[in-house]
């Protein structure tokens, strides 16, 4: 007869679940409120979501303090892992979400915000991303990934245009493929090591000196494909522009930030020990992936005629740029990754919000897509403030000092140089220069051309106070990044170094 199992509740460390539970409870309470009294205005749900996200952020900051004092916190049979990079990435996820959710309060009515389910799914998605980063258990990562992805597909489709359905189905099929690849990769890792926890897999593989190197490489091939899809690395990037074009501009901006930081953290956990193990293949593959992603997507972005597609390709290029940090794999480069992404999230969300306020319901005659460059032509004459804002975000994305992303780029290129990747650093710098062209192209359209009659009525058509506030916050984050970089770097270095990356 087996002994009854006694699990002491204290040993579970239920507190490690607190940030995710807050998000889940938020989602459930939105559903319950809708059941109790339907037909409430969307602003209530936005406020509830914001409130729970604020609580979530509070719990994370609290965890940050505990982490700095006591080190990594484990919970739930070591499935939950709250280390520095988990806390940092969750803070970026929650702050990004807090900047995104007020974008629902548009002045025009949109189909998706009439459903409280939109906000509930949104909160479930955040919980999924949080589960994904706060663990090194391959199964838990998979569950988090799928929870978040399935919610995200639905959010895209809720936009209720034929292009959104197309985008959702495209993303779904691609995402299903990626999930399959991820499952295959983890299966092989489990088969050769007998564990699903990444740090144990690393230990076991180091102990037998990578005897099963063939299998390791096979599993890494699957894993690179899976994360390539999620991070839109170049051979797997094909879904990105179409999906961004089909979803609402706000959601496209969100998709370029939050799902990617979650995937970056998992990629960091997974690839870091292999990059250092001397398995040369993986390093070569990552090197090629990074260089091709940066360069090819920059060249594609040059020829786009639609600003949203241009920004989609530019976000692929930025993801490739940041992927270099995982290839380099030093503490300095990993710190650079988080710094870059924190600054990027403000700037990029600001840029996409500027597209969101220009959202028009119907295309005018001769217009091929939602946001052609011509739409912004001569914007400085009709809407000077908006044009300056958009120009600011573009300059920051191009990496012009002293705006936000310049510091991220500088720090990442610096970390590449200091760890001997001189050629890579050169390619990164060259790519920043190429990228300058298409960002400046929009500035040329806005500041040096004459307005085109017909488009001017759409400027700020969708704007409301909350949208303007978000643009303001993004602009402040972009301009005053110069003062925030040093303290931010100190905190990030402390967190990243203490979690051993």
């Amino acid at each position, binding site marked *: 007869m*087996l002994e*009854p*199992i*006694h*699990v002491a*509740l204290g040993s579970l460390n239920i507190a490690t679940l607190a940030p995710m539970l807050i998000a889940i409870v938020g989602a*459930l309470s939105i*559903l*319950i409120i809708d*059941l109790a009294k339907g037909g409430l205005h969307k602003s209530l749900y936005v406020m509830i979501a914001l409130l729970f996200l604020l609580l979530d952020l509070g719990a994370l900051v609290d965890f940050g303090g505990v982490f700095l004092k006591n080190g990594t916190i484990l919970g739930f049979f070591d499935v939950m892992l709250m280390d520095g990079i988990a806390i940092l990435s969750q803070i970026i996820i929650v702050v990004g979400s807090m900047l995104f959710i007020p974008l629902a309060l548009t002045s025009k009515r949109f189909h998706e915000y009439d459903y409280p389910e939109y906000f509930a799914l949104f909160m479930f998605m955040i919980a999924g991303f949080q589960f994904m980063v706060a663990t090194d258990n391959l199964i838990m990562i998979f569950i988090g990934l799928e929870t978040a992805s399935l919610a995200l597909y639905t959010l895209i489709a809720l936009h209720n245009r034929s292009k959104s359905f197309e985008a959702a189905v495209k993303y779904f099929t691609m995402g299903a493929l990626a999930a399959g690849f991820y499952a295959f990769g983890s299966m092989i890792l489990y088969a050769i090591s007998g564990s699903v926890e990444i740090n144990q897999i690393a230990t076991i593989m180091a102990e037998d000196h990578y005897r099963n190197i063939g299998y390791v490489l096979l599993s890494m091939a699957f894993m690179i494909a899976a994360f390539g899809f999620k991070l839109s690395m170049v051979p797997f990037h094909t879904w990105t522009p179409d999906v961004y074009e089909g979803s609402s501009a706000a959601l496209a901006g969100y998709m370029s930030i939050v799902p990617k930081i979650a995937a970056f953290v998992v990629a960091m956990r997974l690839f870091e020990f292999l990059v250092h193990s001397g398995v040369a293949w993986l390093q070569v593959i990552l090197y090629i992936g990074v260089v091709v992603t940066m360069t090819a997507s920059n060249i594609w972005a040059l020829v786009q005629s639609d600003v949203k597609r241009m920004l989609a390709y530019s976000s692929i290029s930025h993801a490739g740029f940041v992927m270099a940090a995982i290839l380099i794999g030093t503490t300095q480069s990993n710190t650079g990754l988080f710094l870059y992404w924190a600054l990027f999230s403000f700037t990029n969300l600001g840029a996409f919000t500027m597209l969101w306020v220009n959202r028009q319901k119907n295309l005018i005659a001769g217009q091929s897509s939602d946001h052609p460059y011509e739409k912004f032509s001569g914007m400085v004459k009709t809407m000077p403030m908006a044009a300056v804002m958009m120009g600011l975000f573009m300059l920051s994305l191009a990496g012009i000092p002293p705006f936000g992303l310049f510091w991220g780029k500088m720090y990442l290129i610096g970390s590449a140089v200091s760890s001997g990747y001189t050629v890579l650093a050169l390619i990164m710098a060259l790519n920043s220069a190429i990228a300058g062209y298409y960002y400046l192209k929009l500035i040329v359209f806005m500041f040096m051309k004459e307005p085109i009659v017909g488009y001017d009525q759409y400027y700020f058509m969708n704007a409301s106070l909350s949208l303007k506030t978000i643009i303001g916050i993004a602009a402040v984050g972009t301009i005053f990044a110069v003062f925030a970089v040093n303290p931010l770097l100190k905190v990030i270095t402390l967190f990243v170094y203490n979690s051993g990356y």
Partner: protein
Amino acid sequence: MEHYNVANPYFGVFVLFVLTFGAFYATTVIARLASRALAAKDTEKIKLTVYECGPEVTKQPNRISTQFYLFALLFLLFDVEIVFMFPWAIDFKLLGWFGFAEMMMFILLLAIGFVYAWKKGALEWHNIK
């Protein structure tokens, strides 16, 4: 003749596994053969029509209401949850209070989902909001 020991507790599981796959395969093959033998082989009208601004609209003879899909989905959802409860019920004493608390949490979440589906009218025929 060699005597094989089949008392291994997993042997039954293995047999079941093989049978499941065998049954699944057999079902699909039989369904394919049967439908090929029994199906009416009319030449489709739509194949022969002139393509002019899209094919001519033909009425589907066997239309299935989407309600069936919704019901099937809900059934699948709540039915699969039951699968988790059987092993829990068998090992109830073994798992102790921890298992009990876990299952109560699970049922609570399920109950919220169930009430949601109910209130949204997903369980009523032809009344989807």
